[in-house]
């Protein structure tokens, strides 16, 4: 990269020093996550690089922790549970959240600030407090230690993200489109599915992804509300870290990192598509 000709030596030193600092910070962000990937192939039950690993000796590497993970009923059940709960919670929170966002973005909506405050409160209230409240209340209404209970809890935690992302999409939404469609004889249902839905879809999908990842990653409420049959992946990891931390955790972590990369890609593609559709080209 060429620097402007008027830069003094001091400017140049600062220019490069600043880049070094920035890349050190990027390194700080990424390295801890990436370092687990090679360590998960460690042939030894240690959390550090063995001599064989550093010399790239194939004997230093193995898939044993992945076999451990795949062969363990507890882990396998937790994967099923995580997806089951995550998908159910996402459907519930996306449906409720999208409807609410459509209502909230109408000019006629009364008490908008108050209602918005209540709806996004699950995002603001510390999780330990939500979890404690649900622990007591869910026991009373017989849904503690059930899938239904965990799904409801996770849906409640996920809705603020749906409300916020869909509301944001609707900010750029041209209401005259639906009016035009209605004038041309479209029924409200047709109007919704043919006009509104395609336009807000990127927002709905990225809201849904946020809701899914919220549930998929949630642990505090699971610790309080879930029973042994509803254990999710983070709950198994929690036990694993507190009890005997073996490299199996790293194998699981590696798989989860790959899942997050996939989700991240989807969200990023959606965001760009959304901006294109609404005519907001990236500046």
């Amino acid at each position, binding site marked *: 990269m060429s620097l402007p000709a008027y830069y003094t030596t001091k400017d140049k030193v600062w220019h490069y020093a600043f880049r070094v600092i920035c890349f050190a910070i990027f390194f700080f962000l990424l390295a801890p996550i990436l370092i687990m990937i090679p360590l998960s192939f460690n042939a030894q039950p240690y959390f550090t690089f063995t001599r064989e690993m550093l010399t790239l000796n194939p004997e230093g590497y193995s898939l044993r922790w992945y076999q451990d993970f795949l062969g363990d009923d507890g882990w396998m059940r937790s994967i099923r549970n995580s997806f089951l709960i995550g998908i159910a919670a996402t459907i519930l929170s996306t449906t409720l959240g999208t409807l609410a966002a459509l209502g909230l973005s109408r000019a006629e909506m009364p008490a908008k600030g108050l209602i918005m405050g209540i709806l996004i409160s699950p995002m603001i209230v510390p999780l330990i407090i939500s979890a404690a409240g649900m*622990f*007591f209340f869910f*026991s*009373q*209404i*017989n849904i*503690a*230690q059930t899938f239904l209970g965990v799904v409801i809890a996770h849906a409640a935690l996920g809705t603020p993200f749906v409300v916020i992302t869909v509301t944001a999409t609707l900010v750029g939404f041209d209401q005259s489109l639906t009016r035009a469609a209605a004038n041309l004889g479209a029924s409200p249902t047709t109007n919704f599915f043919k006009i509104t839905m395609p336009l807000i879809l990127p927002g709905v999908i990225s809201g849904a992804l946020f809701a899914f990842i919220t549930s998929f990653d949630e642990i505090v409420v699971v610790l309080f509300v879930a*029973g*042994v*049959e509803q254990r999710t992946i983070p709950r198994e990891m929690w*036990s694993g870290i*507190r*009890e*005997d*931390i073996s490299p199996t955790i790293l194998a699981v972590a590696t798989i989860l990192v790959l899942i997050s990369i996939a989700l991240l890609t989807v969200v990023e593609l959606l965001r760009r598509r959304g901006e294109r559709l609404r005519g907001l080209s990236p500046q």
Partner: protein
Amino acid sequence: MTKKLKLIALSSAASMIALSAAAQDPVSLTVVSWGGAYTESQQRAYHEPYMAANPHVTIINDDGSANALAGLRAQSQAGNVTWDLVDMLPSDAQLACDEGIILEIDHDAMLAPAPDGTPASEDFLPGSLGDCFIPQIVYSTILAVRPGAFEGEQPDSIADLFDLENFPGKRALQDRPGTNLEWALYADGVAPEDIYDVLATPEGVDRAFAKLDTIKDEIIFWTEGAQAPQLLADGEVAFATGYNGRMFNAIEVEGMDAAIVWDGQIVEWDGWVVPAGGPNVDAVMDYLRFATDTQRLADQAKFISYGPARASSAALVGQHADLGIDMAPHMPTAPANYYSPIVLDNDFWADYGDELRERFANWMLQ
């Protein structure tokens, strides 16, 4: 041989009764226990043989015992009991019993007699039965030492735990007052039988905390039973207190390099309670009759080094199921180990626990 035959006859009779009573409706029992090596030993000694004899029963393990009383209270307040059987300490069991959230047990009517016909109430070790509590094991909290941490003389007493001069290094202690305060006084020269009298006085409590203060900077606290051997194995600490069965497992089964110090071992029972209003009380009672009989309790000692709570089981304790080593010398109650035990006083902890826990929490945070 005849004894064995009789036992087989007994247990098959028990399972026959179970078969006819339960009428083959599938039953799923949620058994709450401590997780790790301990649940594993119950799985192999109790659950698996029981499920083999009763194919309609499925047993699900939940490792929630550390928070069992909270769970029982919440479930009972809500009138929605989902646990069938809970493994807990007698002090918690007594509280739960006083609150009426677990069932009272008529030990002689509900539990199997010893093979020679001795009723259960006489067969279980003296002082172990509670109104609602069926003991399984005697366990002890002991000190374990990583030999590599010291050259020359090795620590062999609780006093050495508090001796930073001769034995420097980190110590892993449990993050609760029970056991730690007893040891502090014991190391400070109080005789085991006087410890609780001293601890019931404000001066005694101050004295115990003052003693703990001397090693405070070197303490790492652990919460879950499995953490203590882990910290030793990772070389994070030189000393760790822990449950003797977990340490046995780490040393003998997993080959961890550590030695157990039996001095001042703190002895306690652990056992079953049945939540009141649980979904499958009849099935649980049938399971309990099986799982707490003489042979089953002796069998558990094949997998973990906790002493069976029945006198009649002691003679049946044999060799470790996988390693083939004699288990008797690894029992906390083996004469060679039982030379200066401190018997945990549950009445004391029921009364003073709330106050001492607050003070201990404060002390940890300082």
